[in-house]
């Protein structure tokens, strides 16, 4: 394998990884925009999405992989609604810290349930797509599964973009992000918009989990690190900026795989956090600035 192929392979892997980071981060940035809070349970929705996809496939052999993802995404969306009404709604008038703490508590509860339901050292989701290997350019290996993950993530992002830009509900969501008071004067119920943002973010994170499940071993405690990835993506792309999250996610995925593949896997996190500190020193409002969704 030549140096060129190695770099190309890392770029392909980085794009696939980044596309999933995008899904988690977009939900996070929606929450930050509409609810003005850091949702710590976001990473746990992603974990739950992956495990429920696995469980749906185990449960019945007639269920194929896309159906399993749809089932898990629907269940996790309800979990998002639950987290909103149990954790966030009772404390939403109490500033920034109380909702963070209630979502931390709910995240711990979700993680504990996952550890009890799926004990042991992690699970692997088996799909038929994982065995098909293609070599699109040179010696680069791309499985159909990775291709599918990337394409599905980008399609979901495109659908979300259309939803936010073209539909009445999407416009209402954007209006709530920009100014909650005047949005409610225009007849938009901000309560519904908050719940909707929460459900959408859980939906997207669970889809990300279901899509990335077949690529890695899934473990119950992967939620928190996914949350930090989402934070980093949002920082690169700007708070509440959906197209920015797309760029930021792909940049983060590429950065991680390129540093890991070409330099040393041990230094990946140090380098990523170092870049974050640099960005915050040089451009404190995020690399692409926050423009609203």
């Amino acid at each position, binding site marked *: 394998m030549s140096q060129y192929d190695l770099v190309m392979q890392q770029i392909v892997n980085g794009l696939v990884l980044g596309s999933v980071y995008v899904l988690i981060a977009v939900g996070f940035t929606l929450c*930050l925009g509409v609810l003005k809070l*850091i949702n710590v349970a976001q990473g746990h929705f992603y974990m739950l999405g992956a495990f429920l996809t696995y469980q749906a496939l185990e449960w019945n052999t007639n269920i194929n992989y896309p159906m399993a993802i749809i089932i898990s995404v629907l269940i996790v969306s309800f979990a998002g609604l639950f987290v909103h009404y*149990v*954790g966030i709604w*009772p*404390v939403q008038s*109490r500033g*920034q*810290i*109380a909702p*963070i*703490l*209630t979502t*931390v*508590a*709910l995240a*711990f*509860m979700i*993680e*504990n*349930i996952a*550890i*009890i339901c799926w004990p042991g050292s992690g699970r692997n989701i088996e799909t038929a797509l994982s065995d098909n290997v293609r070599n699109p350019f040179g010696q680069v290996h791309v499985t159909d599964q990775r291709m599918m993950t990337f394409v599905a993530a980008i399609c979901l992002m495109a659908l979300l973009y259309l939803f936010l830009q073209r539909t009445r509900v999407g416009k209402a969501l954007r209006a709530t992000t920009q100014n909650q008071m005047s949005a409610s004067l225009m007849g938009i*119920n901000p309560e519904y918009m908050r719940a909707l943002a929460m459900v959408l973010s859980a939906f997207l994170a669970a889809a990300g989990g279901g899509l990335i499940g077949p690529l890695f071993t899934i473990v119950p405690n992967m939620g*928190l690190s996914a949350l*930090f990835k989402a*934070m*980093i993506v949002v*920082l690169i792309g700007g*708070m509440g900026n959906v197209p920015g999250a797309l760029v930021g996610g792909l940049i983060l995925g590429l950065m991680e795989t390129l540093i890991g593949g070409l330099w040393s896997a*041990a*230094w990946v*996190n*140090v380098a*990523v*956090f*170092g870049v*974050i*500190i640099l960005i*915050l*020193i040089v451009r*404190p*409002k995020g690399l692409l600035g926050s423009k609203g969704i």
Partner: protein
Amino acid sequence: MAKARQTIPILILVGMAFALPHMWDSPYYMHLMVLLWIYAIFAISYNLYLGFLGGFSMGQPAFFGLGGYATGLITTKLDWPTGVGFLVAVGVCSVAAFIIGFPALRLTGPYFVLMTVAVLGIVGNLSNTLYKVTGGSSGLRDIPEPVIGSWNFDTTNYYYYLALGFLIITYIVVQWLIFSRIGRGFMAVRDNEELANSLGINPFRYRMIGFVTSAAIAGVAGWLYAHYVHILDPTVFGFNYVFDILFMVILGGTGTLPGPVIGAFIVVFVPEVLRMAAEWRSFFFALFMLVMIIFMPLGLWGFVKVQQGRYMEWKAMRMAQGVPLGLPRYLGFISKDYWSTLSAFLSSIKARFSKETDQET
């Protein structure tokens, strides 16, 4: 008289704390108590910045671990005495906070949170990556126990007194700081930054003082921890510590002096009570936290203070009416009051749902 009424309970509590190792002959619980005092110092350091300056940092364990690693490296690799290790730990934490503070304290809101997350992430990952110095994930071993003169703090009971002594000193220092001119400046910056600035209080300078002091106290806690457990590995930089001390401060009472100590009791002993729940323990602990945060917004100490204020008000009212006092009557009054609050809450939920169904039809 008023002074005595305030100081006597404190003296009784401190006396009980000092007598505890003689009354409670259980090595396991003594171990927990030592950890509790260390966590209480750590939580006080966190509360100094969160409660009195209003800055939500998620990077406090970075200073805890940094202090521990500084003294650990000094005492194991160089064989220097632990007293020097203490000075180095506090010094390293202060300098690190000073350097980090320059970019970080100019940021606000979520950006500051992210900055502190990044600081903790980078320090934690470095402790793992620089394994030739720190021992990596297998840990920095054989950190000696502290020796002061001819006293060797090698047993749990001796260490208990050391940790308790440090806690009392920290508490007094923080109390002095909060009631001094600097502490008033902290609270002015927390409550209204523009107003404070117009009155000649430089917000950045006061934030820096608070941040560095808080980091130095976290370094003290890290020093105590390192010499107590004798081994350090990268898990001391874990994000679980952030949530633990955050829960201590919030459950005890943010921005109050005894709050973090009370919170440390909750966070250390409630999981012990929940031991019977076996594998569901962390679930029920999280549930307990959730309920506490929702129903006690000011924390346990804040709740006590509010109740005390209401009792005083009620007492004054009864005195003015010339009706004899009595605690049972007060409890009746307060339970009626709580019942009305609860029923108002329930009816507000009912009204909310009926309104929503009206809109849909």
